[in-house]
């Protein structure tokens, strides 16, 4: 980008006139460059308006890095924040997920890892402050177990969700937009993955990739390996309707690159759906992981909510009241994070809605124009 030059020499700056001339029709009185000084009215905000053609207007002040950063902040940070700030679901979600992240980052340093015979067997909840959530039948600290399994669970969840959404959206959007041969190939791959039975595949893969499986990222991806296909299918069908909209045709007529059309024109319409699916995928990864640990398919290498559940079950926690906390703690941990994700997905829906964004934008003046007067009324009247 060009550096900020002295704003006053705009009119004589060759850039202002020459570069656009080739696109602007020839005018008989082409006395622009020199005479422009007197002919152009200087706008209050620094720009110039040529009396004859607004198509030649250029700014007298070059754009600085600060301007761009500022605009970026307004669009992607300030407006979303001002929307989320007013929504209790968002605040609750941030609180819940923030707690989990704190536990995963700070908590693991505050609470020591535990080992067998760390304390007395099957101590109840809040009986001593040394083991506030009690102990297991082998004398391990339940709190420490729960806390130390959080980081790997979070990483696994995030990697699984991101994998599902990225692969699913890519296949869906490209297949839906491109059509033809590309669509046939991508859709066939999608169909294959839909039809492979997910659980057996994961079990087989878990066996084959045994030395990778202790890495939570690899595990997350493995658990999501069959989950993206459904998302890809439904995104594809939504793209099919969006791509026939006029604005997509206009974008093609302007020769915008396909990448741009997909990312800037189509994806924003799908974002609410994609985000909800991402949160769902994250939940599913946790559930699947817990289930597989519980079934004993995955190796019991690490502390894990699923492993805890399995051990508690084996220790008869279902019918022994003295062991019930061993079962409840991981269950609450799983439910809590699931609720946090659902609330976050619901509240993010608002961020992507242009009607709500418009209400929260910083217009810089108090007498804001009435935003969606007509449309609101129309919606109401079912017109």
């Amino acid at each position: 980008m060009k550096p900020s030059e002295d704003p006053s020499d705009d009119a004589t700056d060759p850039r202002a006139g020459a570069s656009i001339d080739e696109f602007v029709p020839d005018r008989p009185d082409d006395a622009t460059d020199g005479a422009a000084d007197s002919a152009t009215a200087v706008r209050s905000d620094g720009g110039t308006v040529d009396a004859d053609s607004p198509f030649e207007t250029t700014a007298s002040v070059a754009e600085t890095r600060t301007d761009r950063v500022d605009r970026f902040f307004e669009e992607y940070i300030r407006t979303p924040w001002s929307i989320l700030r007013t929504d209790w679901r968002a605040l609750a979600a941030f609180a819940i997920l923030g707690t989990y992240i704190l536990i995963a980052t700070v908590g693991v340093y505050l609470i020591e890892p535990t080992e067998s015979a760390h304390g007395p067997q099957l101590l109840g909840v809040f009986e001593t402050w040394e083991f506030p959530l009690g102990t297991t039948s082998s004398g391990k600290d339940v709190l420490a177990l729960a806390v130390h399994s959080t980081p790997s669970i979070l990483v696994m969840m995030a990697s699984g969700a991101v994998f599902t959404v990225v692969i699913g959206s890519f296949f869906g959007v490209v297949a839906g937009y491109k059509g033809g041969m590309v669509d046939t190939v991508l859709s066939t791959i999608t169909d294959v993955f839909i039809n492979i039975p997910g659980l057996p595949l994961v079990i087989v893969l878990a066996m084959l990739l045994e030395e990778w499986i202790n890495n939570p990222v690899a595990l997350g991806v493995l658990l999501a390996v069959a989950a993206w296909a459904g998302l890809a299918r439904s995104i594809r069908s939504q793209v099919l309707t969006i791509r026939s909209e006029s604005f997509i045709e206009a974008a093609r007529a302007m020769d915008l690159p396909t990448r741009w059309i997909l990312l800037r024109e189509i994806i924003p319409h799908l974002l609410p759906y994609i985000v909800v699916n991402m949160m769902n995928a994250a939940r599913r990864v946790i559930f699947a992981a817990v289930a597989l640990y519980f079934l004993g398919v995955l190796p019991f290498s690490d502390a894990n909510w699923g492993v805890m559940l399995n051990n508690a079950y084996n220790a008869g926690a279902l019918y022994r009241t003295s062991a019930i906390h061993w079962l409840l703690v991981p269950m609450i941990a799983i439910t809590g994070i699931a609720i946090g994700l659902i609330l976050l997905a619901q509240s993010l829906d608002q961020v992507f809605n242009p009607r709500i964004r418009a209400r929260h934008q910083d217009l810089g003046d108090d007498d804001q124009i009435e935003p969606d007067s007509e449309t609101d009324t129309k919606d109401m009247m079912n017109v």
Partner: protein
Amino acid sequence: MTISQSAAQADRPNGDVIMELDDTSVEFGMSRGRSRVLNGVDFEVSRDEIVGVIGESGSGKSMFASAMLDAVPEPGVTTGDVTYYPEDDDPVSVTDLSKEELRRFRWEEVSMVFQGAMSSFNPVLKIRTHFVETLSAHDYNVERGLERVRELLEDLYLEPERMLESYPHELSGGMKQRVLIALSLVLDPEMLVMDEPTAALDLLMQRSIISLLHDIQDKHDLTIVFITHDLPLVANLADRLAVLYAFEFAEVGPADDILEDPAHPYTRALLNATPNLSAPLEEMRPIEGESPDPVNIPEGCSYHPRCPIADEMCRSHDPDAYDAGADHDVHCHHWEDSIENIDNALASSGSMDRSRRTAADRSADEEPVVSLDDIEVEFGSENDGLLDFGDSEIVTAVDGISLDIYQNDVVVLVGESGCGKTTLGKTAVGLQQPTDGTIEYKGRDIWEGSGNSSTLADKEIRRALQIVHQDPGSSLNSHHRVRTILETPLKRWHSDLDGNDRRERILGMLEYVGISPPEDYIDRYPHQLSGGEKQRVALIRAMLINPDLILADEAVSALDVSLRVSTMDLMIELQDVFNTSYLAISHDLSNARYFAEKTGGRIGVMYLGELVEIGSPEQIIHDPKHPYTQALRWATPELDRDEDIDDNPMRTIDVPDQTNMPSGCRYHTRCPKAREVCRTQKPELIDRSDEDGVQHTACFRALEDHEYWDSEPIAEEPPAAEETGSAD
């Protein structure tokens, strides 16, 4: 004559009133305050009359219809009295009816025809089921009812048996709308409320349905309330007209009075703003300003912000009904004044330069910007064997059209929906690959080197050909601000501009097209713009990269009548600045005439994928040679009421099936002048240009010595049930 009775139980005010609304309001509670979408309306409908209710979008006309049936959707609240006077029974207060009474009232006494015929039917039920359900829901004898249905369908030029056995998707839009009318009449109601019944249809079909309504009304002693935004459409049909503005009636009176001697300034402005075929172009001028917001109706007369003769009185006092003649009420303090002065006032307030351009001389050796040569476009799949079990079904949308578009040229394509005009347009701007034929841009084949890709290889050509869409709602991405929408083409084609330059240029453009203050609009989302503003933004977006040809696909038909003229004026003005050519598409001959005549362009008439006539607007409008053009001319509603509307110049109402094109001249199945030779031989475009203008016609009648004149006429019968409109 305002209404004096207020209590519903009072004696009927007048022997022949069927429906009376007294101080009726409809309100919606909204976060921004109470929205009054119908504001204290008094109105009477007389028995056996046709009332035309005219209003722009957002004037409360649909609410007026709903209020008459107490069918305002939740959470709307209707207040005031709506009284229905049965022929020989006690008056009924519609708002006080119980649910069960309302259900009976709604189809048996007053029925309604909605706008969206497409969505009024359940797609999984046969048409017969719709009728049977309606009959049995109201405890009618189904057998006798179906007899009546057959009769009704026949009156509407439909084959009863075929219709009843069809599913909704098998019918064309016009057929569906007619079946819907039959459905609404099946219980023999006294009154029919039609809310924009023809808005989604073609001109020809609109006109045909309008003339059918006349017969139906006579035959069944109906009272019809016809609600529309299209003034000329009802001009011929209605006995009385009522003009709605800002949720109130501006003027009510006999149709002749309203059309010839309107007393309200809004009615005058509306008449002037309506493009039509006969009035001189200079008389057409847009209405400045916009309709008010229902939450914020202006004090005093609601029209005063836009009215050229408004004074202190109008700002402070809401005008009551003034009596402007027999049965003629006008809500304007200055109605007497208005008749004399309004035209002058309007003329002086018009700011645009309205000089008409003269037709540019097109010398034969001038190189066309875009040249179409024998273009053919086919849709549908051929059966490609293996794994494809469907039938091969090919629709030829465009069949062998050649057309040259020059610099600064305007060509307006006119035709019914499905005639291939949009396909031809998109082919011309390289958004649709032709099956056969070539398109050249300044002598270069635009698809050269593109292979199988759907975009043009030559980026300069891609830039030179742009499009403005019909629906302003979907032509802008609803997730982007105006700034982002307009920055995109600049980023792609003027990469030397930085963010501030782009912003300034966009601000300048917005101001240029009359969107002000631009600083305020640049950060809005599309849903915060009105329809006209959206269309202007879409126009700027195409203009910003300075194309040589813009395809304007029905660019004004989705806009309110009062905005059409101003939008077309803007397009013409931008053409002067940019030397851009337009290929415009319209189903409306009056819009086409305005646009083409003002720019000295040409009008091309398309029928079933072929160009049947092309020429200067003067020739096409005033001296159409092709019978199809004559039919379009007939179908274009006029404000002049003397015209006879009953003689339909076509033999059938419906368009032939596109998968099975008629042989010879494609129009011969509907043409009243068709002769035997038209069945077998296909006419080429024949040059009939003279000193008045260019004109090419694809009809044997243009030739004086053709065997046509010795051939036998095909048919002389009146319009019959569709023998050709098979949709199998």
